[in-house]
């Protein structure tokens, strides 16, 4: 789900300091197309429990309050503003990935929404079908041939991989908007990022709750979701024929299931 990415990315910008220790392992062998490389599962599970507690105690109630007290148009405006400020960083990564089309697209989007969209509060670009071409440094590293590395669940930031954790940190440090903004404005930008995360948590609360609190193994579900969705985004997913229930080792495909 992009929801999780939406939640994890901004939150991580607050808590990214703890990441440094996790950066080493980008050189690890790539996992098989459908296999998950999760050598630190016991530690990841502990962090997962911690994240769940944080969600339960802080993020979920706070976003519930935010969603129920602030009218939707205001929340949408704040989220638009925040995602507009993310575009320069996306353009930077489009360029690093030699995706000129994406860079032009995102630049156009940034200018439309910053001007006609009143500083990014509105999103007329999407109305004109100029959607964001998502790009981040994790994707850039993938493009440059770095392997995914191990799956990691980061404190507060949530599901990631060695490669994406490095990407997260680099995006944080190199964000062009962060370079340009004076300190006061930077706090506003960070605040809107947090509010945007809360808005996502509120909007998709049914789905997020069903994974985090109703699944028999929320850790395994989240890992599956993150890795499949991320590999799909990066064009690294196993092909659609990776799973064929009609030729599954667990049952005879020629047996009539309707018998």
């Amino acid at each position: 789900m992009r929801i999780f990415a939406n939640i994890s990315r901004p939150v991580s910008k607050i808590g990214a300091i703890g990441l440094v220790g996790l950066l080493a392992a980008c050189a690890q062998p790539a996992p098989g197309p459908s296999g998950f490389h999760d050598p630190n599962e016991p530690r990841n599970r502990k962090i997962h429990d911690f994240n769940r507690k944080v969600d339960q105690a802080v993020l979920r109630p706070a976003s519930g309050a935010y969603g129920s007290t602030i009218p939707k148009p205001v929340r949408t405006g704040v989220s638009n503003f925040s995602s507009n400020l993310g575009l320069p960083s996306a353009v930077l990564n489009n360029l690093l990935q030699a995706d000129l089309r994406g860079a032009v697209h995102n630049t156009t989007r940034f200018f439309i929404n910053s001007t006609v969209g009143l500083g990014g509060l509105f999103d007329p670009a999407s109305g004109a079908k100029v959607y964001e071409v998502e790009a981040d440094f994790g994707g850039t590293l993938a493009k440059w041939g770095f392997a995914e590395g191990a799956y990691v669940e980061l404190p507060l930031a949530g599901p990631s991989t060695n490669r994406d954790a490095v990407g997260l940190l680099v995006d944080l440090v190199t964000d062009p908007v962060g370079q340009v903004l004076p300190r006061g404005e930077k706090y506003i930008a960070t605040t809107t990022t947090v509010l945007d995360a809360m808005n996502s948590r509120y909007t998709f609360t049914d789905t997020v709750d069903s994974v985090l609190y109703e699944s028999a193994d929320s850790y395994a579900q989240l890992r599956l979701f993150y890795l499949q969705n991320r590999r799909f985004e990066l064009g690294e997913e196993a092909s659609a024929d990776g799973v064929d229930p009609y030729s599954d080792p667990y049952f005879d495909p020629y047996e009539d299931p309707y018998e």
Partner: protein
Amino acid sequence: MSNHVNRRFFVAGATTAGALAVTGVPAVAMTTASATSLVDKVVADINKVIASGQSEAQMFSAFENIFSRYADVPTIARYALGVEARSASKSQLNQFSKAFQVYISRKYGRRFREFIGGRIEVGSAKEVKSFFEVKSTAYLQGRSPFEVTFLVSDRSGKDLFFNMFIEGINMLLTERTEIGAQLDKRKGNLDQLIKDLPSLG
């Protein structure tokens, strides 16, 4: 793995009519057009439900209808059950399949509820090995459009979808992981899981 599968289907294909008679696969072969037309119907029905403004309960039963009409539920259920399907009795499998249908309709019905105010458009289709992959795009308010892919097969006797990818997330794998975990939680007691499953969705 994929070579192995290839070979298997090649052999299956090569034995033609005789094998078809035995396995009950219909003589009319599925085509890109027929696979697309199935997904067209699925998507039209989903769009109807998300535009209807029905209550949650009505929507769940509407989604259950969609699943039972257009999806190969027994095959999906069996795949989700994984290795346990081998040791289960026929009647357990049947009951599991029924319970699974309720579970999956509620669970994915809830996902589609987030699509309210949006729509899905069917795109391109192509043949992949023994089945067809039909891509569609979901347009939701306030989000970039994203891909929902349906896999369609006629191996059940008619064209039905047997898997779905929402933004790359594979429903079969998701459910095998979840059903496996639910079984573990019940110490492998399949009958207990069958009893609990309809309320887990």
